[in-house]
């Protein structure tokens, strides 16, 4: 079977992903471009004796070196020479869409133009003469509807045709005689001096006149470009004199001029703009008074669906893993192997799959919001607030809201931000939003010390998280992310009905990616921590004699200035790295709560019943948020399941008087509050760090995140404890 390699290119929001999904179905692979944070998607399908490999290039408006996406796309076309490039364009928005087409023609790409969303254009009153357009461009133009496979057959035929007899359009674009002449002049020099460069020489000449930094740099590196570069500079000066403006502006003008000519001859635009459906929707959702309430309502619904609907499924997973652990324990009896299987392996796997419900739901909802066009409006509505307070893009609001449920989906939602600086900065502050996994810790400490001030203490912690995030954002903006903030130049695409298939595929590929990339990290570290807690062999799990216990004992003095220098607190903080709610169960173990139910206490066993799920040690941050709040039984992941009659009576840790007095012995009210502040701010949990690793495609950022949050937590807790002491609190 013969192979053909094609690439899909086009502006954002023109149905590129829809076409990609409809061509490849589930036979696709998502990853990153080598060394980049830009997403890479490829897939294959068979057609007429051919195996066709499809690369989905990032959605771009242009091929200038303006963004990483543009560079990636451009380099791919230059270096990899795909057999055919299918350029998807929106029929009702041809002018701007063709700008990218023109740039690909300059590159000598072998193009097929797929004219998408013709029905919508017809309704608006556009009349497009496809044959004329095709003739003027010199490339096949095919009408398609990506959502329902209209024109699919014809598109595939065109692809095969041009793969056999490539069209030559490289000299078709006209920039006016003045510029054309100089391109030719420079092209000759390029051919003579640096002929080994992959890209077409006319394109290289053009880019040099545009003063494209990437191309200039490449030519400089080649070592033989002096003559070409100095000539280019001379011509640029000359053009500047003629046009009274930079040459690259003149060239951009000329491209749009060329396009205007094409449109003039092949498209009849509607005379009067009808009030569109999109316009009517926008009048409501970006309304002066209603816009923000509507946005908040949509956020609230997203939050509720992600976390509340996800919770029962997480509880089911918890219960299932618990039963599995029990079964293994029952089958194998107590022992080192059992401990490994139950606490290490099953616990670790549980810690991964427990995230599936909220993450799948989140990605489904994000796909709906994005594909419908609302996400752009949300950013439009919130941008001023986000820009003024923390200097971020309006879209950063969504990850931060999600962070209050769980930082993992919050981090993953940052991929809706196009700008890398905004994306990284948002990832660094999302963990300060107090997630639901911290709630059990708050509940326990409040029950021990602050019963009378419950609401105030809780509120102060949530507020503190937000305040710290704002301050940190301000600091980072002026240090590691120094420079001008990203511009808010963003298309507001027409509203469209998202397709169920598209949203489901989106959800599936993200979910699977999560399992593959983050799952291994979480599982690996969970097992490592299990080993540290179980060694040396024979030691009681997580006791002071275990490696973790010893680590806790060693590092405990570090926390003395914060008011909690006891080894128990240090060990709890250590386990809290797995997931913050594990702090509670760790105290449970260390103070022997729940021993009556279990012969071998360990931090993964709950303070309550021996039947309790055993994988808590590895986390279920997102789950039980509501449950925890309502029943004040925070560390219980699945109270419903366990409410069934059992031999032993269940006691939530904050209702267990013995446990409470043990905690009261460990802290003073002041040091307890400092401890809460520390738990709020310190190192994001393992799953969050894994998400940051996945999203930034580098270990640098999770490492940095862990380090700086530890410092921030230390400083703030220090101020709280020492300041409080000075003020006479105890």
């Amino acid at each position, binding site marked *: 079977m013969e192979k053909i390699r094609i690439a899909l290119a086009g502006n954002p929001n023109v149905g590129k992903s829809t076409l990609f999904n409809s061509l490849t179905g589930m036979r696709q692979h998502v990853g990153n471009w080598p060394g980049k944070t830009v997403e890479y998607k490829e897939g294959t399908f068979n057609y007429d004796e051919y195996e066709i490999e499809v690369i989905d290039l990032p959605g771009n408006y242009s091929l*200038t070196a303006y963004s990483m996406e543009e560079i990636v796309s451009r380099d791919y076309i230059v270096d990899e020479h795909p057999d055919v490039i299918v350029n998807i364009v929106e029929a009702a*928005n041809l002018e*701007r869409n063709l700008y990218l087409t023109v740039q690909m023609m300059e590159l000598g790409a072998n193009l097929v133009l797929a004219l998408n969303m013709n029905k919508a254009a017809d309704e608006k009153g556009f009349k497009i003469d496809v044959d004329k357009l095709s003739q003027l461009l010199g490339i096949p133009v095919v009408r398609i509807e990506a959502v329902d496979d209209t024109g699919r057959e014809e598109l595939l035929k065109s692809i095969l045709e041009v793969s056999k007899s490539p069209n030559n359009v490289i000299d078709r674009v006209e920039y006016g005689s003045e510029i054309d002449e100089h391109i030719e002049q420079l092209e000759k020099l390029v051919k003579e001096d640096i002929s080994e460069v992959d890209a077409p020489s006319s394109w290289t000449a053009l880019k040099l006149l545009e003063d494209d930094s990437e191309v200039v740099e490449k030519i400089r590196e080649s070592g033989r470009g002096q003559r070409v570069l100095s000539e280019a500079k001379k011509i640029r000066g000359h053009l500047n004199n003629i046009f009274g403006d930079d040459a690259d502006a003149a060239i951009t003008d000329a491209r749009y001029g060329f396009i205007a000519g094409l449109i003039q001859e092949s498209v009849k635009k509607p005379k009067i703009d009808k009030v569109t459906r999109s316009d009517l929707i926008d009048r409501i959702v970006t309304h*002066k008074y209603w816009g923000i309430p509507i946005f908040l309502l949509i956020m609230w619904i997203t939050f509720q669906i992600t976390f509340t609907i996800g919770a029962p499924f997480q509880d089911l997973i918890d219960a299932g893993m618990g039963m599995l652990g029990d079964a293994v324990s029952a089958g194998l009896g107590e022992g080192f192997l059992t401990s490994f299987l139950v606490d290490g392996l099953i616990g670790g796997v549980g810690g991964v799959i427990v995230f599936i419900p909220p993450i799948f739901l989140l990605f489904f909802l994000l796909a709906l919001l994005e594909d419908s066009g609302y996400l*752009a409006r949300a950013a439009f*509505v919130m941008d*001023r607030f986000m820009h003024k307070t923390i200097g971020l893009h309006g879209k950063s609001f969504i990850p931060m809201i999600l962070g209050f449920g769980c930082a993992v989906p919050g981090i993953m939602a940052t991929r809706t931000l196009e700008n890398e600086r905004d994306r990284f900065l948002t990832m660094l502050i999302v963990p300060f939003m107090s997630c639901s996994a911290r709630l059990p810790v708050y509940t326990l400490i409040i029950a021990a010390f602050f019963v009378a001030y419950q609401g105030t203490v809780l509120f102060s912690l949530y507020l503190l998280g937000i305040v710290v995030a704002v301050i940190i954002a301000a600091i980072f903006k002026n240090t590691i992310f120094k420079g001008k903030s990203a511009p808010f130049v963003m298309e507001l695409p027409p509203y469209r009905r998202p397709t169920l298939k598209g949203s489901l595929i989106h959800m599936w590929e993200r979910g699977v990616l999560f399992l593959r990339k983050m799952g291994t990290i979480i599982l690996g570290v969970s097992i490592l921590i299990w080993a540290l807690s179980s060694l040396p062999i024979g030691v009681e799990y997580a006791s002071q004699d275990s490696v973790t216990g010893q680590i806790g004992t060693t590092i405990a003095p570090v926390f003395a200035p914060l008011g909690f220098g006891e080894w128990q607190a240090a060990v709890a903080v250590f386990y809290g790295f797995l997931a913050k709610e594990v702090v509670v169960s760790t105290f449970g173990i260390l103070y022997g709560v729940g021993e009556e139910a279990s012969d071998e206490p360990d931090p993964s066993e709950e303070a309550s019943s021996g039947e309790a799920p055993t994988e808590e040690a590895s986390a279920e941050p997102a789950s039980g948020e509501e449950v925890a709040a309502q029943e004040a039984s925070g560390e219980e992941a699945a109270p419903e399941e366990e409410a069934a009659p059992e031999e032993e009576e269940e006691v939530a840790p904050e209702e267990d008087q013995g446990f409470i007095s043990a905690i009261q012995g460990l802290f003073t009210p002041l040091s307890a509050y400092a401890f809460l502040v520390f738990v709020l701010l310190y190192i994001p949990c393992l799953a969050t760090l894994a998400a940051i690793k996945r999203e930034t495609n580098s270990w640098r950022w999770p490492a940095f995140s862990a380090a700086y949050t530890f410092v921030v937590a230390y400083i703030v807790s220090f101020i709280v404890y020492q300041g409080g002491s000075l003020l006479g609190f105890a």
Partner: protein
Amino acid sequence: MDLGNPKFFERMEVIKSMINALNELKVGDSGVVVSYKGKGSLRKHLMEMGFVRGANVEVQRVAPLGDPIEVKVKGYSISLRKEEAQYIEIEIA
């Protein structure tokens, strides 16, 4: 161009007064891009998004908090902050 004609400078004044930065336009105002003050990658990006000389623009909406604005250009809608729009000079139709 008849510089000897005293009316010429008067006319120049009138034309000048019709030119506004894009961020100064009100909702519903429309006009034509005449120039862009300043340089750099933002300018290039805006031009590529359609704010080239001679392009028709119309301010469609302002966000609830007063910024950014939504502008129709080249037949589609784009949003930008006022601080970014201030560099684009429009001759009001």
